[in-house]
């Protein structure tokens, strides 16, 4: 078996994170499902980490850098938008404490 470095460690991390996700989301009150969707939407922009590495490193082909840069733009839109909108939605809930 041709095994890349860290595969088993990554599988451990994956399994643990998946179980954790299940437990965490089950606990979210229904009231908050809309901001939750918008928050997880923002978290999905974590792909920006890969995009940054792709863009920043030297490559033989300029094409790769361009693809990476487009990916950064896309992820950033996703991240900025997601967190801002979640904040906007949550602000509406603040009335409770008033």
């Amino acid at each position, binding site marked *: 078996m*041709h*095994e*890349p*470095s860290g*595969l088993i460690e*990554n599988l451990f*991390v*994956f399994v643990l994170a998946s179980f954790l*996700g299940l437990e*965490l*989301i089950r*606990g979210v*009150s*229904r*009231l*908050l*499902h*809309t*901001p*939750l*969707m*918008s*928050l*997880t*939407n*923002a*978290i*999905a*922009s*974590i*792909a*920006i*980490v*890969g*995009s940054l*590495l*792709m*863009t*920043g490193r030297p490559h033989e*082909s300029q094409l790769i*850098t361009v*693809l*990476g*840069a487009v*990916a*950064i*733009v*896309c*992820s*950033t*839109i996703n991240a*900025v*938008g*997601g967190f*801002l*909108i979640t904040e906007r939605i949550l*602000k509406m*809930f603040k*009335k*409770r404490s008033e």
Partner: protein
Amino acid sequence: MQETNPYVQYVYLASAALFILSLKWMGQVRTARRGNWAGTAAMVLAVLGTLIAGGITGQGYLWIAVALVVGAAIGTPMAIVMPMTAVPQRTALSHAFGGLAAALVGVAEYLENANSGMSTFTVGALSVEMLLGFLTFTGSLLAFGKLQEIITTKAVIYPGRNLVSIGTLTIAILSAAFLTLNPASTAAFGVLICASLLFGVLLIIPIGGADMPTVIAILNSYAGLSSCAMGFVMNNKLLIVAGALDGTSGLILSIVMCKAMNRSFANVLFGGMGATPTGGGAAKSPTGKAIVGFSIEDAKSILQDTRSVIIVPGYGMAVAQAQHAVKELANVLAAQGTDVKFAIHPVAGRMPGHMNVLLSEADVPYDQLVEMEMINSSFPEADVAIVVGANDVTNPAARTDKTSPLYGMPILDVDKARTVIFIKRSMNPGFAGVDNELFGLDKTMMVFGDAKKVMTELVAAFKAGH
């Protein structure tokens, strides 16, 4: 592609912990905002960590800076200007960007290393990343189009569609498998991309616009899993953690939504394959009885001097943006001494918590919003139930008619109130396409018209009358 700076991993660990805390805190209203801040901080840490990861050239920093600025310049106004009712569309569009980003990174990674020998596992993970990324991209774009009503919101049902969808998916999977075994095959690479893009389209086409929120949650899950696959390719644990959190959260959310709507999860997961076309189109006067519309004045006279009123908002309130007018009516009623409550059905509107968000926006105090389970016992004591643009969530067919697509969905018992006022534009059915027999009851008063217009006029009538 390993980070050369070992400390980066600790930054990533901190970021992962913050993402977890973010979801944890989002679980309760009291801590939800802290949750959003934690998420933001986690993302900032992830970006900063990557920037110091090492290996990035001066030229690279330039590209990155430009791309970040462009992204922020597009994303910020989009988020700030957007009206609250457009949250579903915005989320769909955002997913499209997220899916595209993951897919493009996969493409770039493939192009760079295709000839320099990648392990079988790495190519397999890359294929999964591209497949999920691209189908999320086109799927989300289409969902956006339907929600924004750029394309038809109807479910497009054509003969043999199941065959076409499954065929496309099969081709995508086969080409992924072939690519995994023959990393140098650019043909398989091309086919994989095209089939994935096409499958995203086919996945969404047969689904009606109103089912989109559930579909978006699923697409969220796919986007997360795509990032996860990227994490396996790049040996990056932060990507795996955040991707897995995302993947499971999308899954759970869509299951919760399906349950609340009494739909089969499998149906949505496999993109409406085998979805039964529900009722479809406009309905006639349901019981055959002639139904008369009542006037604003009629409604006003019923509402005057009532002891208790329950307002039931639904999708129509969202469409008409009537939440502020509804809140005004509640104020007017409260001023005359009426006890006013809002009944919140879990799937009223088109996304989970839709009514909570809209009414909170209109400053309705949090404690007047009562969830279905709590308020149902109050309907028999209510003088009037005002149904503002809701329909399915009040339909007694869900309790009695086994053949109805609504059968089994818990509903709000508005029919137990002494009088029911329905405010909607016509006799048309709601999302499920099912007639509502309440419209024909003697205790029911239909007030036809746009929700915002009716509400505003009703408030005006009250103010004039006093």
